[in-house]
C-alpha cells in the first residue's frame, strides 16, 4: 500500500513494517532538541527523581535561546542550570547563546531526511523542512525521552498544501502561512502533518521552507514536512554534515491524504494578521493606516538571514518614522555574522533599527522589547495571542519582514510593495 513520508519515517522509528493513521506506536528517537526554558531547569529534577541520566548524549542537542542574555537573577539562574546540565550529562552538542534553537539546529547540520526528532518547543515542526518527522513536546514528555530514548506518537493523517507559481515582489513564505491560517483556522490541521508540495517549493531556499513548516504549528498540525531534495542536501553539506538518502522517505504518489489545499503564490500579496490570532489574517490593505508603536523583526519564524535581507530591501535609504521604534533580533549568530559581512546590518542600523541579541526575545514576552498597555506592534513572528508580547491589552499584528519594515518607515501599517517599486 502507498504510504506518506510521515508513515514511512514513523514505521521505521517504531521498528514496524507499516503504520496507519490513528494508530498509536512507540518510536525510538533519533534526536532530541531542548532549550533553556523547557529544558534542563525542568527535566533535571525529573531525571533525578527517576535516578537516570540522558540515554544517549550524542543524540541530544541543547541550545540556550529563551533567556539570553540574562537580564535578572532569575534568568541568570536558568542559564546557569542549563550550562551545568550540559557539563553533568556530558552533552557534546551544546550551543550557548548562538541563536534560536530551530535555526541553530538546522544550520549546524543536525537534521536529515528520515529522522524521527522531538523538540522541547512548539515550533519544532520547523525541522520538518529537512524531510524529517520532527514535532514539539512538553518538558515532562522530554524528560521521558531523555530517560528512555523513546516516546509514543499517534500516526497523523497527511494534509497536502500545494504551492504553485512564482513568488511576487514583497511576498514571502510567511504570507503563504498567514493566508492558510485565515483559510483553514487555527485547528485546520489538528493532529495532522502538513506536507508542502508544488513547483514553488522546489525553488525555495531552506530558510523559507523552514518558515512554512514552522507555522504548521499555527494550524494545529502536529508538524509540517517537506521532502528532501538537492537544495536540502546542499544545505546539509554546507553545514558540515553528510546528507542522508532522501529518496527513501518520499510520499508515494498514490498515498492517501486527508485533504489537499492549493495556494497560487503568484496571486498572493502581503498578508497581515490582526490581534489576537494568526487566523485573523487578510491582505495588508485591510489594515493599512493602523498606527504602530513598535515594529519587531525577530523569532525563529521571521529573523533569519533571508528575512533580514527582506527588511533591508525596504530600509535601504529610508528612516524609521518618528514615534515608532524598530527592534531587530537576528535569528542566529551565524546569520548576524553574514549580515554584518555583506552590508545588510549596516543598512538596517543606518535606517535607525535597534539591534537586539539573537534569541527568542520579545516574541514570547520573555526578553527585552515587550509592550506597554495599549501599545501596538507589528512583528515578523508567528503568534499574536493576547498578552503574548507584553501587557494584556497590547495589540500585535503579524506580517512578513517587508511589511514590518515598511510599517517602521511609515509609522503605520502599509503595503510594502509601495517601497519596492
Amino acid at each position: 500500500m502507498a504510504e506518506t513520508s510521515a508513515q514511512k519515517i514513523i514505521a521505521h522509528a517504531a521498528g514496524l513494517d507499516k503504520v496507519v493513521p490513528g494508530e498509536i506506536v512507540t518510536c525510538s528517537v533519533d534526536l532530541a532538541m531542548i532549550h533553556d526554558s523547557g529544558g534542563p531547569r525542568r527535566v533535571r529534577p525529573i531525571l533525578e527523581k527517576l535516578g537516570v541520566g540522558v540515554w544517549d548524549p550524542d543524540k541530544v542537542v541543547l541550545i540556550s535561546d529563551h533567556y539570553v542574555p540574562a537580564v535578572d537573577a532569575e534568568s541568570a539562574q536558568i542559564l546557569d542550570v542549563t550550562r551545568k546540565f550540559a557539563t553533568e550529562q556530558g552533552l557534546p552538542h551544546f550551543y550557548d547563546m548562538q541563536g534560536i534553537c530551530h535555526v541553530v539546529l538546522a544550520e549546524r547540520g543536525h537534521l536529515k531526511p528520515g529522522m524521527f526528532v522531538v523538540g522541547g518547543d512548539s515550533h519544532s515542526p520547523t525541522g520538518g523542512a529537512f524531510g524529517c518527522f520532527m514535532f514539539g513536546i512538553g518538558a515532562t514528555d522530554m524528560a521521558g525521552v531523555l530517560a528512555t530514548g523513546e516516546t509514543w506518537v499517534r500516526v497523523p493523517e497527511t494534509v497536502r498544501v500545494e504551492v504553485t507559481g512564482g513568488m511576487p515582489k514583497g511576498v514571502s513564505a510567511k504570507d503563504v502561512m498567514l493566508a492558510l491560517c485565515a483559510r483553514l483556522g487555527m485547528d485546520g490541521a489538528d493532529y495532522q502533518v502538513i506536507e508542502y508540495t508544488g513547483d514553488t517549493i522546489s525553488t525555495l531556499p531552506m530558510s523559507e521552507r523552514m518558515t512554512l513548516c514552522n507555522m504548521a504549528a499555527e494550524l494545529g498540525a502536529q508538524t509540517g514536512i517537506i521532502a528532501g531534495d538537492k537544495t536540502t542536501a546542499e544545505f546539509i553539506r554546507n553545514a558540515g554534515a553528510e546528507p542522508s538518502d532522501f529518496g527513501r522517505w518520499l510520499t508515494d504518489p498514490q498515498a492517501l491524504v486527508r485533504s489537499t489545499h492549493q495556494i497560487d503564490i503568484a496571486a498572493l500579496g502581503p498578508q497581515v494578521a490582526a490581534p489576537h490570532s494568526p487566523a485573523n489574517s487578510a491582505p495588508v490593505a485591510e489594515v493599512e493606516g493602523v498606527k504602530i508603536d513598535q515594529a519587531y523583526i525577530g523569532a525563529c519564524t521571521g529573523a533569519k538571514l533571508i528575512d533580514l535581507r527582506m527588511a533591508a530591501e525596504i530600509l535601504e535609504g529610508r528612516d524609521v518614522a518618528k514615534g515608532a521604534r524598530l527592534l531587530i533580533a537576528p535569528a542566529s549568530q551565524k546569520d548576524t555574522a553574514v549580515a554584518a559581512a555583506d552590508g545588510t546590518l549596516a543598512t538596517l542600523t543606518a535606517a535607525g533599527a535597534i539591534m537586539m541579541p539573537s534569541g527568542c526575545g520579545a516574541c514570547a514576552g520573555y526578553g527585552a522589547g515587550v509592550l506597554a498597555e495599549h501599545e501596538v506592534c507589528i512583528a515578523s513572528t508567528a503568534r499574536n495571542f493576547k498578552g503574548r508580547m507584553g501587557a494584556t491589552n497590547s495589540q500585535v499584528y503579524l506580517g512578513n519582514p517587508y511589511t514590518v519594515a515598511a510599517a517602521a518607515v511609515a509609522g503605520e501599517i502599509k503595503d510594502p510593495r509601495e517601497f519596492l517599486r
Partner: protein
Amino acid sequence: MNTHGLIKGAKVWAFGDYIDTDVLAPGLYMKSSTEVIASHCLETVEPDFVKNVNKGDVICAGKSFGIGSSREQAAQSLVYHGVAAVLAPSFGGIFYRNAINHGLMTLICPNAKQITAGQHISIDATAGSVCIQETGVQYSCEPMPKHLLAMMVDGGLVPHLQRRFAN
C-alpha cells in the same frame, strides 16, 4: 477520580474556542514558579477563575483548547488549581500530551461547548460518556486510549516511568 477514570458531579467552568497557552500560562511570568504562573491562569478571559475555582471542578471548552506553546505550565496551572478534567472538541496537540503527562484528564468531546458554566457533570473516560446532572442530557466523547488512561491514573508520566524503572 478513581483508577477507572470516573468523575462524579463535578462543577463546570465554560470557555470558548482557542483558549491558548498564553491565556493559560502567560509568557510574562514564565520565569517564575508554577504557583506564580498558576495565579495568572485564564486571567485575560476570566479574571475570577483563580479566585473561585475549586478542587475537582472541570472545564468544558470550545475547539483547540491549549493551542500554542509547548509550555506545560499551561496544563500544570490547571492541575495546581485542582481541575479534574478538560472536555473540548479538540486540543492543541502538545497540550493534550502535557495534560496526561501531569495526570490531567483530557477528553475529546464534540459537544463540550453545549455544557454551560455552573452545571455539574459526571464523566466516564473509559466508556467515553458525559452526563449533565441538572438536565440528564448525555453526550459521548472519545474514550481515552488505554495506555494513556493508564498513565493518567498513575498520576502522569513521571510516576509511570518510576514504576517502569523500579521493575
